[in-house]
């Protein structure tokens, strides 16, 4: 007779599968995760940081179409395919939006695009610049699905590439907060007494400093940049994890199976890692999901303030910052699209957190 395995973990998983919003959010996150990893493959503008500017077509509506002439830059720097896929192309052609063009005497004559019914400047380029003197491959109709930002960059590409930062800051910050928080929390909760007092003091001090201020202080100390933000956010979030772990351990260590483990002569490390931690993971997982969402929000807040990811790096917070004054100028989509992205990602994490909390409560 084959016995069907049903550990508490599997029971929780079965329960989680029945929760529509949990599963939906889970798929959504996987979807966003794939987009974040393969952003440069999917994005129409695959230059590094999706930074191909066309100033003449800045802040256009979603679905805007224009004829685009790309002029080869001339250098042919060697780039590996992998780096192209994951970090975008470094050297690229110069792209010029044009309204009309003609070819005469080995010279391409074109009129630059100008909006609001103005007449663009006419320019010429020698056909030698193009390989085989063939221009047709280099003039294309280009559509901007989400429109363009205030530097004329493709907003869709920026949003896709920006997903990376939001996603990865969540991972890194939660990872850092888990490592520090679980360690501190378990030590404080398990040993109690003076150890507990010292760690609690540290927790309270860290907690009393406003998160944004602390992150600003850490970014100032470590320098601006997005890695610093990752670390800074992680360092502020361990406090909540530590509190939760400590509280859980204090009640879990009164359980008889912990006394049993002591009586059986197990070492403290074994008791904490094998007997206590697996039993208190449920609230830690739930708080991690919430922290994920919080980290994304803090990062966008920091980018909005200008101390997060630095231009030209694409970040949703920074995109809102660049465009929030367009909201009253009749082009709200420039800020609303990244705003919606932040909202849906945070929401997905929150829903997963809720679903996990219900699923892991195996008492019912």
């Amino acid at each position, binding site marked *: *007779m084959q*016995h069907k*395995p*049903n*550990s*508490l*973990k599997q029971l929780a998983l079965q329960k989680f599968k029945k929760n529509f919003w949990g599963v939906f959010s889970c798929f959504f996150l996987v979807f966003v995760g794939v987009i974040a990893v393969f952003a440069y493959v999917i994005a129409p503008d695959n230059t590094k940081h999706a930074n191909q500017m066309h100033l003449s077509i800045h802040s256009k509506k979603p679905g805007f179409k224009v004829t685009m002439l790309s002029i080869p830059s001339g250098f042919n720097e060697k780039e590996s395919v992998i780096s192209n896929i994951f970090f975008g192309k470094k050297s690229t052609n110069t792209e010029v939006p044009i309204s009309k063009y003609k070819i005469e005497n080995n010279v391409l004559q074109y009129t630059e695009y100008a909006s609001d019914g103005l007449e663009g400047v006419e320019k010429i380029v020698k056909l030698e610049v193009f390989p085989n003197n063939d221009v047709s491959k280099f003039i294309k109709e280009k559509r901007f699905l989400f429109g363009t930002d205030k530097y004329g960059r493709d907003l869709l590409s920026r949003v896709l590439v920006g997903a990376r930062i939001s996603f990865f800051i969540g991972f890194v910050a939660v990872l850092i907060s888990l490592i520090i928080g679980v360690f501190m929390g378990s030590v404080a909760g398990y040993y109690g007494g003076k150890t507990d007092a010292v760690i609690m003091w540290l927790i309270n001090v860290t907690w009393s400093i406003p998160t944004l201020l602390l992150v600003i202080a850490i970014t100032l100390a470590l320098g601006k940049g997005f890695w610093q933000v990752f670390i800074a956010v992680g360092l502020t979030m361990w406090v909540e994890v530590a509190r939760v772990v400590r509280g859980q351990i204090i009640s879990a260590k009164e*359980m*008889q*199976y912990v*006394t*049993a*483990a*002591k*009586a*059986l*002569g*197990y*070492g403290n490390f*074994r008791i904490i890692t*094998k*007997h206590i931690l*697996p*039993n208190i993971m449920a609230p830690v997982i739930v708080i991690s999901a919430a922290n994920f969402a919080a980290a994304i929000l803090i990062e966008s807040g920091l980018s909005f303030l200008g101390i997060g990811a630095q231009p030209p790096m694409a970040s949703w917070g920074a995109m809102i910052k660049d465009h929030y004054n367009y909201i009253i100028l009749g082009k709200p989509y420039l800020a609303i699209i990244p705003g919606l992205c932040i909202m849906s990602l945070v929401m997905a994490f929150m829903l997963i957190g809720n679903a996990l909390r219900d699923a892991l409560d195996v008492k019912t």
Partner: protein
Amino acid sequence: MKKTPILSIKNLSISFGKNDVIHNISYNLYENEILGIVGESGSGKSVSSLAILGLLPKVISKITSGNIFYNETEITTLSNKAFQNIRGKKIAMIFQEPMSSLNPTMTCGKQVEEILFQHTTLSKSEIKTEVISLFEKVKLPTPQRVFSSYPHEISGGQKQRVMIAMAIACKPDILIADEPTTALDVTVQKDIIKLLKSLQKETKMSVIFITHDLALISEIANRVLVMYKGNIVEEGNVTSIFNNPQHNYTKALINARPSLHTRLKILPTIQDYLSNTIVKTEITTEQRKLQHKKLYNKPPLLEVINVEKTYMSKSGWFSKPTTFKAVNNVSFKLYEGETLGLVGESGCGKSTLGNAILQLDKATAGQIIYKGTDITKLSKSAIKKLRKDIQIIFQDPYSSLNPRIPVGEAILEPMKVHKLYNSNKERKEKVIEILNNVGLNETHYNRYPHEFSGGQRQRIGIARTIALQPKLIVCDESVSALDISVQAQVLNLLNNLKETFGFTYIFISHDLAVVKYMSDQLLVMNKGEIEELDDADVIYNNPQTNYTKKLIHAIPKGL
């Protein structure tokens, strides 16, 4: 003479989700009688009484068929509002846990007053005098003081008396007492039973008394219902049930509890009765004497000398810390192969003493000598080695196993930690052997604790304990949380293992009957001190101190 029933239940079935827990039961309750309902956990005795009060959890449970008539009105279909007039006023209830059924933020007097406000039109001062007289009625020592005390300021027995006062405040027709004494010490239990009986006589109300303890029910009830798995298997007069039980389950229930007079070699279990394979071999006093002579000729395995355990409690910053001696000047000797019974009421320090021997809690003073070395002065690594020799079996089979580790792994882990045997394969074989020893088998190896019943979990706990092949095992209330029939199985198992492996037990329990059955020597503790120490039979037949006499007297004897 045919009396009209005050409460009658007809063909009642209740289900929780898809599980039927009550199957088509019918019974009547007549005026001025005490009806006992007895059964083990899961037999549906509490569920059926909650249904009478309309207190079943709405979402998950459903009355699938049947009616409940109170004074010939059907009450299963009553609205919530109409029910409130019956609940508390006509039908009142006392719960098992007096600690959690009183609101800790209200004084006891206020809580009783509240009921009178709800159901009567008396004025404020009248209500207060009424409450005080109720408190006098339930024989609370200082009614005035209890009136203005908070629940944490009075003892468990007093709390239960307040609960009874609350229940009888509106002079109900029916009082449902759901295990009202299970959480209390035997001596307190005796007083509460006496009180309930005299109150019933005085007010002539009808009482439904629910318990798992047949002996207890024999002391209070007129008529008894025996429930088993949601069915009523037997109903009848107390004397006829006890002296002439018809159903095998009732027989088993009566006999599974260790008798105070004879000492059977193996306690009969329900399976034995159902399959009719009862072995009734007694251990005679001569056999016992002979065995004891053999035991006490050897040097003692463990010697406890003047052990003390003091707890300090600090009440304020500047006040002196108050000390409380949980164990005070306790000495005894334990010989290899014997069972020492340790008995006493809650808070007498018996568990603290057990923990001190196990070195889970250091003793404040005194010596504990195991095989010639004082283990109170051992280093950490030496204590770790000692853990292999001295082991514990816990009270609660539900919380003593880690819910996330399959039971096979849980039994294997201590072997791994103490580096017994050479390979995991060898250890696994050994685990399966141990599982067989405790009456489980190989198929259970990969299951998780929540897939087992209480009795099976206790077996797993025992298996984990004996995995280390200890010499001395402390059984700390190891059977107290189990049903009587399961308790008998576990006691048999413990005795069996003792014979096979030559264990020495310290058997801690508040239940004198069980301790007497198990032990060679008996140690009675009271308020941290040894009250009496002698052969178990000698103490039982011839108690020396008043405390022991009181304790023995308070045990419900049955008929």
